[in-house]
């Protein structure tokens, strides 16, 4: 029981060619840089864009031959996309009355959906009067009210402030679980992908470059974009015993003993920064120039250049203590056991 999509959409020069399947009661996050084809993928599955080639099946039944209004696929659009001339409750009732449910009945059911999503008291409000978080919930209620077989969500939490983001995320988790069908969510945010999705599909340049359980993708990225997305340093390298030679010609010492092409990841927090050559045991020690210092709330991210570019994350105190700034020469150290490798 699943949604199986094999989508080819050609819009010269762009080509989206992606296959994915989502099981019942599973959430798959589609993640990728801008212009990777994420929204195109959702649009094609929903039937809003014609397939150049391919097919879409739900439980073995073809959907791609049906018009969007007959696919039973709910789509929550990026900014909610509520009908501006209808109140919140009429937005939610819209789909029901299109399906022939009588006005009063449709309104009642719409109202129950708004209540379930915690925005019942906003029923008479026009979309322009709703806050960002409220609008997203109304949009979710609108999509769920017609009881679709499949739920697609395009950046359901984008551009919300921190508080309404976490509230809306909680509502999303609750109702996605209650929904029970296959769910596909497009997101830019690693936290959303990891908290909402069971599996991740990475889309780059119209192609699936990696997919797997969310935790595994987060731990073993296979492209620079994914590594950046999950916040890891990634190197492509050739392993000769414990010595890794990266494609840029730098050397790293890892704990493994493979003889193969590998990916190596280093967590930014495993990178130590020093002003002098460090004493002691770390196997990987090198000197580099700081190219960027990014201060976050509790941690500071420091990017260094050279043949082994790396991002280190240190506490705000130690960043201040070391006087880290752009252009400063520093010593970096990473223990061999902190260099994780896996086959390329």
């Amino acid at each position, binding site marked *: 029981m699943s949604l199986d999509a094999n989508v080819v959409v050609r819009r010269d020069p762009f080509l989206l060619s992606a296959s994915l399947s989502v099981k019942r009661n599973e959430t798959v996050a589609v993640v990728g840089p801008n212009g990777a084809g994420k929204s195109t993928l959702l649009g094609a599955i929903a*039937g809003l864009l014609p397939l150049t080639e391919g097919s879409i099946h739900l439980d073995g039944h073809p959907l791609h031959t049906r018009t969007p209004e007959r696919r039973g696929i709910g789509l929550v659009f990026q900014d909610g996309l509520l009908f501006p001339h209808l109140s919140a409750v009429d937005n939610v009732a819209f789909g029901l009355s299109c399906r022939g449910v009588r006005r009063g009945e449709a309104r009642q059911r719409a109202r129950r959906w708004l209540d379930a999503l915690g925005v019942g008291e906003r029923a008479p409000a026009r979309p322009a009067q709703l806050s960002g978080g409220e609008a997203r919930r109304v949009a979710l209620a609108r999509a769920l009210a017609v009881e679709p077989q499949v739920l697609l969500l395009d950046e359901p939490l984008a551009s919300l402030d921190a508080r309404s983001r976490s509230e809306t995320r909680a509502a999303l988790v609750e109702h996605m679980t209650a929904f029970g069908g296959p769910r596909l969510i497009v997101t830019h945010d690693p936290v959303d992908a990891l908290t909402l999705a069971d599996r991740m599909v990475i889309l780059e340049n119209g192609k699936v470059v990696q997919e797997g359980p969310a935790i595994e993708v987060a731990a073993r990225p296979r492209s620079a974009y994914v590594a950046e997305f999950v916040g890891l340093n990634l190197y492509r390298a050739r392993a000769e015993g414990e010595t890794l030679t990266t494609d840029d010609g730098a050397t790293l010492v890892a704990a493994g003993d493979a003889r193969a092409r590998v990916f190596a990841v280093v967590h930014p927090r495993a990178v130590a920064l020093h002003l002098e050559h460090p004493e002691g045991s770390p196997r990987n020690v090198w000197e580099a120039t700081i190219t960027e210092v990014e201060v976050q709330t509790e941690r500071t991210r420091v990017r260094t250049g050279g043949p082994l570019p790396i991002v280190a994350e240190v506490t705000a105190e130690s960043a201040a203590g070391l006087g880290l700034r752009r252009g400063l020469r520093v010593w970096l150290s990473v223990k061999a056991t902190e260099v994780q490798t896996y086959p390329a």
Partner: protein
Amino acid sequence: MTRRPSPVVVGLAIVAAAFLLLPLTGLVSRAPWSGAARELGRPEFRTALRLSLICSLGATAISLVLGVPLAMLLARHRFPGRRLLRGLVLLPMVLPPVVGGVALLTALGRRGIAGGLLHRAGIALPFTTAGAVVAGAFVALPFMVVTVEAGLRSLDARLDDAAATLGAGRWQTFRRVTLPLLAPSLWAGGALTWARALGEFGATITFAGNAPGRTRTLPIEVYLALESRPEEAILLSVLLLGVSLAVLLSLRGRWLGLP
């Protein structure tokens, strides 16, 4: 900060405003208000008025039925020749109306390129009331297309997508999403189209003639009356001026720049 305008600009602007307003003032001040009731009771006037209403409303209806789909295609879809088509659609707005009338004759006249077909089907347009409706629609349709197209462009086309995923078919989407959101543009387009068709003279008299009771609309009545009964001509002109003013006021913010 904007600097004070130069005296030259202010002076010329005053001349321009006076130039536009003076004739209208003349019209209103010279109108024979005392004999108005008698003049307006004349059967010629009533016939012309009825005919004008039929022709202008008919032209507006044609413009709605044909102009909205054309505006939708121009606003929402890409196809070869779209820019050219948009340019040509605007042509009647700048074309001398009498040229429009001659063009209609050559196209829809009895020996016209499409008129032969119409004639064989038993439809005669030149010098008939239906012809006056067609002439009005020809000159007024662009106003509908332009206004509705601008309205459609300001709508988010993805709202149609949202409606489709909720189970709305094309017609339901049009009726329940596009139409209500487009209503202000339809009103504006309708008002402009109607006003343009109501005032139509050149294309009508060329294509449809000036047969009393059949094609002699108010503007033609005004023109003909000017020779023999100038009082009546002035009065009818004031009436048409009032209609234009009412249309302008009904469009308020859209065209007058008022909030």
